[in-house]
């Protein structure tokens, strides 16, 4: 179709690419071994379209990981915007972390990227979680004797540990959110 403009073609390509990522992110949690054909079917595109965007399964997984991490960050930002205080925010982030960690455990090999994303989110001024925690620290709502970056990094590792404990069956899924929330709060607000 020569009539179709380049812009429209590009838009279709972007939409197709996102459709494949969405389909993979929806399909892989239940079936981590789903093949490229199944993912193409779920996205209602041809196999060749999938391969036009992703040379192989690994490239697709990378894109899904980036997408999931992006969504996680967006949800954290939403929590921070709506949270009723630090305790509320930490518990909600903990719950989100458990949910994401369990649902997307097929991305376990991408946990370094998730860690890097959290570091960017907490690492410095201008990063959403850093700003939130830093403002809370200035108001005296979280402990003032530790850098905010340390608190956030340690909290991320504790959250990762919880996901591991639930997956290993050491902690029951239904106990996890409260246990993690209490721990995250204790790390930030020692003497409540």
């Amino acid at each position, binding site marked *: 179709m020569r009539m179709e403009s380049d812009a429209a073609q590009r838009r279709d390509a972007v939409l197709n690419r996102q459709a494949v990522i969405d389909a993979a992110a929806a399909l892989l949690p239940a079936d981590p071994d789903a093949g490229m054909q199944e993912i193409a079917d779920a996205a209602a595109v041809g196999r060749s379209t999938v391969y036009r965007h992703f040379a192989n399964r690994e490239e697709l997984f990378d894109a899904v990981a980036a997408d999931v991490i992006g969504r996680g960050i967006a949800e954290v930002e939403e929590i921070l915007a709506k949270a009723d205080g630090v305790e509320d925010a930490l518990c909600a982030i903990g719950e989100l972390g458990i949910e994401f960690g369990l649902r997307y455990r097929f991305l376990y090999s991408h946990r370094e990227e998730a860690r890097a994303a959290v570091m960017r989110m907490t690492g410095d001024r201008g990063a959403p979680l850093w700003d939130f925690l830093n403002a809370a620290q200035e108001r005296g709502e979280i402990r003032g004797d530790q850098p905010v970056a340390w608190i956030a990094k*340690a909290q991320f590792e504790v959250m990762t540990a919880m996901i591991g404990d639930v997956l290993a069956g050491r902690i029951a899924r239904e106990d996890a959110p409260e246990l993690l929330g209490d721990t995250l709060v*204790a790390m930030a607000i020692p003497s409540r």
Partner: protein
Amino acid sequence: MSSDEQLRSDAERNRRLVLEIATELLSRDPQASLQEIADACGIGRTTIYRHFPNRENLLEAVTAAIIDTARVETMAAVADPDPEIAIRGLGAASIDLALRYGRLFADRDGQSATYEAFKVDDTSPARRFLTTARERGAIRADMPVEWLRSVIQAVTFTAINEVDAGTSSIEEAVQLAGDTLVAVLLTG
């Protein structure tokens, strides 16, 4: 001493030497070859093979030796009756042990049966300390010991990353980890 006894005690001394040097070399460089270990011991490679028929065998012995060290040092670290001092000691010991030996286990995730057994060991000094401290009301009782161990591991891991990244000195990391662990384990 008869010549048989002499031979046996030489063999025993060699075995201990190999184990000691191998532990040191392998925790710095997990890929160190048996030849490098033999050279560092000043003995032939065949002598190593006499004690440890293959690399896997040597690695298991090294792992067991490290676990013994970890046991002894952790036990000493939690000996203080003041729970805050014991918790800080536990944090400092696990950071120190991880900095010394962590590399050896980093790429061997789940590969060493000995190490796996240690991680779930009910008699490990850290778990015993947490269990008894919890029973006598010295640390929080509303969280399972299993989870408190996970928290200690996660905080240790954070501290090591800080040291590796050059963000904190070892002393600063130990202080931060200790403060965090005290906050989690003593409140509640």
